[in-house]
């Protein structure tokens, strides 16, 4: 089975996020004067072949701990796990 997994990676709370600050300071020039505490993170999407959802989740958790995030500066969260049912367009061509 193939699972589509989305992992969110954020800078730890309290760690200065200059990118978020830059976005925050640009918003008033577009007319939004009511925005504060902007933080920029990233989202990593992957497709994992695994026997079941729990196994997919466990593997991605390990990837996130060892590689996708750095525990010194970041936290991660598995935002979504969904089983892929439709074939890829490339797979369809092949059949």
């Amino acid at each position: 089975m193939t699972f589509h997994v989305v992992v969110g990676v954020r800078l730890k709370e309290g760690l200065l996020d200059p990118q978020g600050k830059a976005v925050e300071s640009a918003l008033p020039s577009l007319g939004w004067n009511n925005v504060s505490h902007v933080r920029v993170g990233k989202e990593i999407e992957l497709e994992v072949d695994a026997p079941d959802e729990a196994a997919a989740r466990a593997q991605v958790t390990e990837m996130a701990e060892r590689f996708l995030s750095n525990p010194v500066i970041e936290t991660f969260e598995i935002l979504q796990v969904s089983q892929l049912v439709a074939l890829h367009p490339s797979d369809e061509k092949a059949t």
Partner: protein
Amino acid sequence: MSEHRPRVGVVTFPGSLDDRDALRAVALMGGDPVPVWHADRSLGEADAVILPGGFSYGDYLRTGAIARFAPAMESVAAFATAGGPVLGICNGFQILCEAGLLPGALVRNRGLAFVCRWITVRVEHGSPGSAESSDNLTIGREGELLSVPIKHGEGRFVASAEELRRLEAAGQVAFRYCSPVGLVSDDFNPNGSAANIAGVWNEKGNVLGLMPHPEHAVDPDLGPTGGQPILQWLLSAARARVPA
């Protein structure tokens, strides 16, 4: 002092930029430079290793995050664990932090801008630990000033408050950014690093990482030579490991 020229391996990753300058600096300082390719496990029988500056793997994901899994890094990690001297410069420092061979991490500069200029660092611990050793295995006395260039976008050293206290107590802070006369203050912090930290030692004191570039500051014909004592430490540490 023996005339032995220790072999210093300089690892080139895809995206390394300062490997050639590092090789040249090693030769100028009396070492035998050995190019090491990231995909090779062999360190070319090196007595010391330099991880040079640049943008390995395009800095994708995080700086140093992908380089740390290069085959050569397995050998570097084993070499460092066995007590071999390792110097990480800029991107090399970032790789060592990602590999867990040095504490902390390096993140986007406080001001977002890439900074490229000559700065001054103050030697905090020329050798690790609170007791300064008097032999040649030291970069300098506490308070000594070195003029070196920086050029990075992600050089802000961060660590947890607990880790910072531990680093300070253990004498693992090697350098701090300071004014030209040695004043350590936020005005002379080019990237927002915690406690103005520009470089750190590992616990054992055989691994050193710093954001400034000593390899660009060794040739008196080209400018200040604040990089010399840092490379001299690496060569002395390498000689100390080589049976005479």
